[in-house]
């Protein structure tokens, strides 16, 4: 499935493939070779031009790309072993929120993450990556376990929001998220949070309090999705592009406003065009960041974590 702005690139890539075939079939004609080089060059320029100048809405589209890697894809590719753990010990096991211990180059880490599905059946099974209260409670249970066994925590965030349903309200969606946010500040072990797709509001923040909060290049993180923002402020679903612009929800925006700590680059064209390279970059970032965080004492980490979030925001004060 191709997005609008992926179309011209795909066409050029197809043409290039055809020419390469011709080149092989026609006794390696030097004229064709020249043509290939020309197309390769313009393809590179087109890609560079396209992806450097994406609108905010186009980045939102990339963050939701049907082929984009999800949490378990990262874990499977990055870890040499992974033991998944289930359940909140109270109500259920939330399939939209996964957790477990994984080993990164032999280093044991607790992974937590929202999980989306790739086909209709899986999407329903994973509830479209929208966790219920038991998902947040499961995440916190596992994070406290990581603290007990002195293992660092990595949270991978990818959710269109916490689930808005009757049962979710009945079981305290708001309380579950609030509880996580507060308690994550006091975790004695290092916590790294990475937005790998969508970071929608409280549903994202419920597992996104960390010593480092990073965003992949083509992701979004804000208080509301562009669609919902459009429906509330413009009273129509048609202003999602404007809403995305107004919300300033891209990684670059969020870093510029000092609301995240860094951006993890993606391959040209987005994470899905070269997943292997993406996994490698993310893995290396986690290992490097942990090395830095582990030089601090737990008390200093907690203090810096609190100070960082406390400093967020812009206001005026007349004394």
């Amino acid at each position, binding site marked *: 499935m191709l997005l609008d702005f992926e179309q011209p690139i795909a066409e050029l890539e197809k043409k290039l493939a055809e020419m390469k075939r011709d080149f092989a079939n026609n006794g390696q004609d030097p004229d064709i070779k020249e043509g290939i080089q020309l197309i390769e060059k313009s393809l590179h320029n087109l890609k560079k031009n396209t992806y450097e100048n994406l609108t905010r809405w186009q980045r939102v589209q990339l963050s939701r790309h049907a082929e984009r890697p999800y949490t378990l894809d990262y874990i499977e590719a990055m870890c040499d072993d992974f033991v998944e753990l289930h359940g909140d010990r109270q109500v259920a096991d939330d399939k939209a929120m996964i957790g477990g211990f994984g080993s990164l180059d032999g280093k044991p880490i607790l992974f937590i993450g929202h999980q989306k599905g790739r086909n209709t059946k899986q999407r329903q099974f994973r509830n479209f990556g929208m966790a219920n209260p038991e998902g947040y409670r499961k995440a916190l249970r596992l994070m406290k376990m990581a603290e007990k066994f002195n293992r660092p925590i990595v949270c991978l965030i990818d959710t269109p929001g916490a689930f*808005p349903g009757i049962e979710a309200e009945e079981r305290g969606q708001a309380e579950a998220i609030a509880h996580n946010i*507060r308690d994550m500040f006091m975790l004695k072990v290092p916590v790294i949070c990475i937005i790998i797709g969508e970071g929608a509001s409280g549903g994202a923040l419920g597992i996104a309090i960390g010593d480092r909060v990073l965003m992949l290049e083509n992701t979004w993180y804000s208080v509301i999705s562009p669609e919902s923002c459009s429906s509330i402020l413009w009273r129509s679903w048609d202003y999602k592009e404007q809403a995305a612009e107004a919300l300033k929800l891209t990684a670059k925006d969020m870093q510029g406003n000092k609301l995240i700590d860094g951006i993890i680059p993606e391959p040209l064209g987005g994470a899905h065009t070269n997943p292997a390279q993406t996994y490698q970059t993310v893995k290396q970032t986690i290992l490097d960041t942990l090395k830095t965080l582990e030089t601090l004492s737990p008390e200093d980490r907690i203090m810096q974590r609190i100070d960082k979030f406390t400093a967020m925001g812009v206001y005026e004060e007349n004394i």
Partner: protein
Amino acid sequence: MAWFNRKEKGIITPTTEKKETPDGLWHKCPTCDHLMLTEDLHKNAYTCVSCGYHERIGSEEYFEMLFDDHVFTELDANITAADPLQFYDSKSYLDRIRDGKAKSGLKDALRSATGKINGVDVTIACMDFTFIGGSMGTVVGEKIARAIQHALNTRQPMLMISRSGGARMQEAGFSLMQMAKTSAKLALLAEAKIPYISLLTDPTTGGVSASYAMLGDFNIAEPNALIGFAGPRVIRETIGKDLPKGFQTSEYLLEHGFLDFIVNRKELKSTLTRLLKMIWGQ
């Protein structure tokens, strides 16, 4: 067309000569239509004398009701909103703030103060729904964080009164992070073993309920308040079904174990005093 004319019972005053009732002398309850003197409404803690409906009051009324002899010191009164994102929908955010200020006479959707409740020093942060729907932006978050810090520094119990639709969209990511900021301070308050009482009033939803409003050592609510994470309209649209009667009311939350108790506003001050006596001091 005789029925147009007031022929009977001698009603002959032309409209232009009709006397106006002084503004605000009478108050009509929005739920039971009972007509009462505004003065009686005030005396009844802004609840209907007939059906007990709790009017949506703000910081001015709560401070007046709760602090002894109406004496209190306001905290951080001079923080006002900036527009870091230059947010613009049908109207610019700066215009919305200006209109909000003019309409409410307030600087933003929260005021904080310190004073005594029946002799006990407390810090109170109270939301004002009349300012952009009580939405939480940086000013609200910052003032709550500072009020909690004040409670920490002076070792005063902290009372939070929430009344809000949630985070303020016009500050986008900044609003979201106020949930984190306030919760971080509450983590410190909990560590210091200082009581935190959260009073949820109508309505308390979204990012406010998913952060400081639900983190009380004691979560208490006024009767029949709408409390939830997602708004009822969003839930109805998502699941495509009508919602059960009484869904997301205070009574519903009490039943499901998320509130310690529901308190009638007339008994708020005395109940807080009784509770604090049990856990604070000596």
